[in-house]
């Protein structure tokens, strides 16, 4: 019980941090390269804890991100729902990939996400995204091993502590 609750805290804090990181400004030169943090965190949790992540939850997180970001309402909700759906569908395979293959899969997922974003922006009549931003999925894939190891480490520590406590 204790462990589950602790994992819940880590889960929500992770998502909140991802949303904050999304809002945080970077120097203008590397701004378009910023990886899409909420997607990375959601991918991790949908690989590790299916009982926590569902398409509906991804939709909710996306709506919150839209509200914060001030972009079109429903844009990120749609993209995150699609992303989590794909991850959950291929979860059993993705989980046992070696790290480099997993990073490759993350790159494809983020690239798909980016294509969807470009399409939605085109439909809404917004200006096209900066060309450099097409490298952002690759940066996300490069960061993925670190995100995975960090979250996994926190997760395993909690699990150990929870087991001792109960």
């Amino acid at each position, binding site marked *: 019980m204790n462990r589950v609750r602790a994992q819940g805290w880590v889960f929500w804090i992770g998502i909140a941090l991802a949303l904050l990181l999304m809002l945080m400004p970077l120097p203008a030169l590397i701004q378009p390269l910023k990886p899409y943090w909420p997607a990375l965190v959601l991918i991790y949790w949908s690989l590790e804890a299916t009982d926590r992540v569902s*398409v509906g939850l991804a*939709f909710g997180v996306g709506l919150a991100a839209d509200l914060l970001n*001030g972009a079109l*309402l429903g844009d990120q909700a749609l993209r995150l729902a699609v992303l989590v759906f794909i991850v959950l569908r291929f979860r059993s395979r993705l989980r046992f990939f070696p790290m480099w293959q997993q990073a490759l899969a993350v790159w494809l997922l983020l690239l798909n996400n980016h294509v969807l974003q470009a399409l939605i922006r085109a439909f809404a009549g917004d200006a096209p995204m*900066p060309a450099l931003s097409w490298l952002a999925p690759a940066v996300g894939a490069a960061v993925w091993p670190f995100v995975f190891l960090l979250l996994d480490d926190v997760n395993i520590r909690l699990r150990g502590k929870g087991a001792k406590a109960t």
Partner: protein
Amino acid sequence: MALPQKESTPIFSDATAGTLRLIAYLALAAVLMVLDHRNGWLHRARYATAAAIVPIYKIAAAPADWVHQAGTAFAQRSKLIDENRQLREALLLAEARLNRMHAVTRQNERLKLLLDTQQLLGMHAQLARLIDVQLGPTRDRVMLNVGANEGVHVGQTVIDSHGVMGQIIETLPHASVAMLVIDPDHAVPVTVARTGLRGIAHGTGDTAQLVVPNLPLSSDVKAGDQLVTSGLGGRFPAGFPVGTVAQLKRDASGMFMEALVKPAAELERSGEVLLLRDQPDPIGPPAPAPEVGPPASLAPTARARSQGQPAESAGAIP
């Protein structure tokens, strides 16, 4: 840990249910997007939740602030920093006044007309600071730390000490969003300060460039010309610097020239900005003449006045 995972492995019937659920969510998202695009729901939702959201922006902007403060922390004297900030704000205001003065002087020289400078120079402005968050994937909108409760309203001009930055497009109770002049959706009516040639400067999405399209091939413009707001259209007051012509080239059709303009405002660097309180003179028919004669409420007192009583006391009787 292994057992519950096995239980949650999807069976095929689950998979179809999952797909249906996904389709439902996608439809919901599409409906939301269309409604938001048409009605601007997002703005209403943000306005309603602003009390919770604005602190989040402040938290998100905090690390950038810390980095900035770490630079000034060498002085280690908060007093010094405060004084510095006050002086900078004063300087900003003074510089903006000076700029304005400059443009008006030049206009005077060119037109050889007496202008009502008294009215033009009385500038009411409000200081605002940028909240450093990134709105959307591009950098052409900024968030300011004053909002509807401080008297900000949509359409106000935003300037820095060097020129026009943009205009307010959305207000929250204690924050507001400004669209910069470089936004591709933004246009400013401008005039060449040297010759008076009119044009419209559009944003390009590039922080270092505006473009003034559709100039006649014969028009008298050259690189280095100053562009100032013309005041036409009734949105921006006249005479504020917008930019400097960097380059002239023929447009795609070859029938017209377009001027590439370097914005005057320091869009990447400005930390404090001014919001102009004064709206430009409204364009349209003059206001109806005020009613002449005594107000209607005094009509019944005519009799009282004929009896020799003053109108005020007659009004006070009932």
